[in-house]
């Protein structure tokens, strides 16, 4: 008895598994068949012939066709699953439309097979997909299918795509390291020979000429193999009237090599004193620059760590309740409307709304808010957040690219590519940089020829080569984008989404913060602040009765009371004859008594004897609305309901003020209640009774007075004011916030985000300045020194090898400096004291 493992494709459900079992079961000798949908393999035990199994599988529509060459069987042994997945690594999967019959399959396969670079193409009619292996471009494949009369699009498997990208990056990194090895392996011994006193000059007619000729050929190999990308790039750029870093390197190393070859082959053309060879410089430079690139690839991986972290939040599979059963399916296959189960410790796979169960979700990865959030039926859940408590069943509402997480990733990626205005000068300089350096190199060579000491030729060559090599357009070009990338990523970690690089720069020098009241300083929804009981009743009793009355109401005030009762563990009793009177209150009967809960005027009209009036007045002064509870004709309690200020609002505002910012609250409320909130929040100024449409005008007025204004609002009602401000901050609660509405979005509702965003912006801007300063100083010092400006005074002339090392280091330094930002903590100590105070 033998065991065969066969790869399958397109089998997603138990129905498919059944079809496969039936198809294979018909093969003589197939005794036991197991289908593994997760691994997409089928295991067959028995004496069946492998060919027959493969054929049966292909006929069932789930087969993976073996490569026709070089052997009928796929090159790795089918037992190894690992090698199987490695083989399919380069595959492209297409979704095919319009194919309905078996003959379509053939014509599509033929069409795909005709595309250059396709090793093998197989179409699966069952799930309308085609798998293509080889090196063809997806675009060509789609065109081929379209010209055959069908439609096609690439199916993205983000997991595999990520893996492939990572592999390609690694391969490139290893290749660069190999190139470094070749370059330094040839260059270093030569340089050592020179340093140890070996002759680097050519004596015509002696053995040294032949030996140097051999070295020249070896160096040419270095230029041709590890140096090839530079030369190809330089040539292509040249043809486009363009010049880039490759141009400089190719010219520098090429010049050194050519000069040396002239010395070797025709020493007679060169004065005796100038018969020096510079092969070691060419080889060393190629090696060093490859090393620099390798280090850069490494360091760059870290700068994009923030996006990677977000990408890693995506769940891979989801447990979907379909057709009366549960199945784990790849998250890409979840559609809106699916019911999904999430167990404790698992990630939410797609955005949705809870239908059953209750749990706590850790949303910190999206909002930066460390406290888990309680979720129950009706609450929305966001993809990427972690279920900490019980099991939830939720209905998928947004999937794929529509989830909040996907949009955040998109936004962060885009923002990372934008540039604050400070980078513009560097852009302008780097756009004309390379040709300018070429001019300087030629000018330096001429200067050495006319003014320099003997022998002129070798000095000309050294000066020109060194200028070409030391100039580093990369450091200049990278200075801004690297820091922006890290800064924007850092902000995302704290639940702060910065949409444009420009906002980074502006946010660093704001002096005024305008805070909208409702939803920004306050919770944005009423909450119970006080319960007062008249003589003879307890607060618990008052709250229980109020909750019993409000249990049937949908009013926001009712919700506030219900939540408070729930928090205190009080359960409402059932009432009869419930009535809600709009603008007045509610009434019902309980234990033979009539209960009323409402405003004072209504109860007075009903002839109720009032009580607790002084306390109620005090509540009003604290910006709370007093609700009177009456049993029959007597008031037994007063409940204060208010839109409370957020727990940490006062601390965050204090933090902003300590930073020297003027904090202004803006609201449509009447002056008295605005003042009450302002006192609690501790703002500098209040702009009360401002109509929503006038908020933008108020911001403009502040700007006209010379202020740099940040506006913080909810992003919906405050959109015009957010747009008017120098930087608009949209503040949201959890993941529901409209993230496209402002320059900066704070995912957590906390105002600390404003202070954090400013701190991160300042740090990023500082980092950019360091980078730009470094890059400018490096180039404006390095180039003249390389040209030999110091020679007349000190006799120094830089070696091209040193220039190569310096140039590699300079761009690595910029990237590493940007990476330092990753460890930045926006005023952590400050935050901790704030939290501590809140606890006490």
């Amino acid at each position, binding site marked *: 008895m033998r065991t065969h493992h066969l790869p399958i494709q397109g089998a997603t459900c138990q129905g498919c598994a059944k079809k496969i079992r039936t198809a294979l079961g018909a093969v003589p000798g197939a005794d036991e068949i197991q289908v593994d949908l997760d691994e997409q393999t089928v295991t067959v035990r028995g004496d069946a012939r492998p060919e027959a199994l493969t054929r049966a599988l292909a006929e069932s529509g789930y087969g993976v066709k073996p490569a026709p060459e070089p052997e009928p069987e796929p090159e790795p042994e089918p037992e190894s699953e690992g090698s199987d997945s490695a083989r399919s690594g380069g595959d492209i999967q297409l979704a095919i439309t319009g194919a309905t019959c078996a003959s379509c399959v053939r014509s599509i396969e033929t069409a795909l097979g005709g595309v250059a670079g396709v090793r093998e193409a197989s179409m699966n009619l069952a799930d309308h997909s085609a798998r293509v292996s080889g090196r063809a471009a997806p675009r060509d494949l789609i065109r081929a299918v379209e010209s055959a009369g069908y439609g096609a699009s690439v199916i993205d498997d983000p997991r595999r795509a990520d893996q492939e990208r990572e592999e390609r990056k690694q391969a490139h990194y290893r290749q660069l390291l190999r190139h470094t090895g070749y370059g330094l392996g040839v260059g270093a011994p030569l340089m050592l020979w020179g340093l140890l006193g070996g002759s680097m000059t050519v004596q015509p007619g002696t053995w040294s000429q032949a030996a140097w000729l051999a070295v020249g050929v070896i160096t040419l190999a270095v230029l041709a193999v590890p140096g090839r990308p530079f030369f190809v790039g330089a040539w292509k750029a040249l043809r486009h009237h363009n010049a*880039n870093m490759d141009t400089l390197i190719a010219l520098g190393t090429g010049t050194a090599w050519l000069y040396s070859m002239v010395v070797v082959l025709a020493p007679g053309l060169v004065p005796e004193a100038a018969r020096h060879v510079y092969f070691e410089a060419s080889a060393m430079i190629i090696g060093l620059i490859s090393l620099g690139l390798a280090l850069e690839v490494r360091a760059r991986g870290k700068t994009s760590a923030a996006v990677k972290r977000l990408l890693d939040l995506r769940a891979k599979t989801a447990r979907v309740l379909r057709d009366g059963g549960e199945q784990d399916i790849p998250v890409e296959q979840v559609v809106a409307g699916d019911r999904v189960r999430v167990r404790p410790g698992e990630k939410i796979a797609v955005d949705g709304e809870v239908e059953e169960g209750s749990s706590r979700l850790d949303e910190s990865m999206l909002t930066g808010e460390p406290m888990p959030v309680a979720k129950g039926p009706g609450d929305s859940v966001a993809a990427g957040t972690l279920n900490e408590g019980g099991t939830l069943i939720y209905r998928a509402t947004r999937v794929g690219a529509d989830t909040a997480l996907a949009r955040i990733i998109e936004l962060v990626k885009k923002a990372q590519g934008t540039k604050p205005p400070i980078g513009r000068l560097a*852009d302008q300089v780097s756009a004309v940089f390379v040709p300018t350096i070429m001019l300087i190199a030629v000018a330096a060579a001429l200067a050495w020829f006319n003014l320099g000491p003997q022998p002129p030729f070798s000095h000309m060559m050294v000066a020109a080569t060194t200028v070409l090599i030391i100039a580093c357009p990369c450091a200049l070009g990278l200075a801004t984008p690297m820091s922006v990338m890290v800064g924007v990523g850092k902000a995302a970690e704290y639940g702060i989404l910065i949409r444009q690089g420009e906002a980074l720069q502006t946010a660093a020098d704001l002096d005024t913060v305008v805070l909208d009241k409702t939803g920004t300083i306050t919770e944005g929804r009423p909450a119970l602040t006080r319960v007062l009981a008249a003589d003879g009743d307890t607060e618990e009793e008052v709250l229980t009765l109020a909750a019993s009355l409000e249990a049937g109401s949908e009013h926001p005030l009712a919700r506030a009371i219900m939540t408070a009762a729930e928090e205190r563990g009080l359960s409402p009793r059932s009432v009869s004859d419930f009535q809600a009177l709009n603008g007045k209150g509610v009434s019902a009967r309980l234990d033979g008594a009539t209960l009323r809960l409402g405003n004072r005027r209504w109860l007075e009209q009903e002839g109720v004897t009032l009580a607790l009036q002084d306390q109620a007045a005090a509540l009003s002064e604290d910006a709370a609305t007093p609700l009177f509870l009456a049993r029959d004709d007597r008031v037994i309690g007063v409940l204060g309901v208010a839109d409370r200020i957020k727990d940490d609002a006062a601390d965050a505002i204090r933090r902003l003020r300590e930073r020297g910012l003027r904090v202004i609250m803006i609201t449509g409320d009447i002056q008295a209640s605005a003042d009450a909130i302002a006192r609690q929040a501790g703002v500098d100024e209040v702009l009360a009774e401002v109509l929503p449409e006038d908020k933008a005008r108020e911001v403009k007025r502040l700007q006209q007075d010379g202020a740099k204004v940040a506006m913080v609002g909810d992003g919906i009602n405050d959109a015009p004011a957010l747009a008017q401000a120098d930087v608009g901050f949209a503040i949201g609660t959890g993941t529901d916030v409209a993230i496209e509405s402002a320059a900066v979005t704070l995912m957590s509702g906390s105002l600390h985000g404003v202070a954090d965003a400013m701190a991160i912006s300042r740090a990023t801007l500082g980092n950019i300045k360091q980078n730009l300063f470094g890059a400018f100083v490096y180039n404006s010092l390095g180039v003249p020194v390389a040209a030999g400006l110091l020679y007349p005074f000190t006799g120094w002339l830089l070696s091209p090898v040193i220039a190569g090392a310096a140039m590699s280091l300079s761009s690595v330094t910029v990237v590493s400096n940007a990476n330092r930002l990753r460890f930045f903590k926006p005023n952590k100590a400050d935050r901790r004291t704030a939290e501590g105070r809140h606890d006490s």
Partner: protein
Amino acid sequence: MSWLINLSGLALMALIVWWFWLAGAGKARRATHGAVDIIVDDGVYEPAVIESNAGEPLSLRFERRDASPCAEQVVFHGLDVSEYLPVGETTTVTLTPEQPGTYRFTCQMNMYQGKLIVH
């Protein structure tokens, strides 16, 4: 002899100025049906000059073949558009330039350079 070298040096400088700054930057590719395929390889965008009309949606399909980190991102200056280009893949950048003008698109370090001319 020395005048010859000086002269050729100056001629070389003139050539550099002329070739990189004064001479035209290759032929422009007009977007057909609003789409252009651009290959990102060996330090250049091919084609490097794209023409289009204001207000027309344009999709540029960048196929990045160059693994060097320089080519990682394409940035459209003045349009607030940027995109990551994974190696070996085709990435579509969709944009609708509203104002006529010339917009540069480059890699982060300005080594890859292209122009979008909007009429």
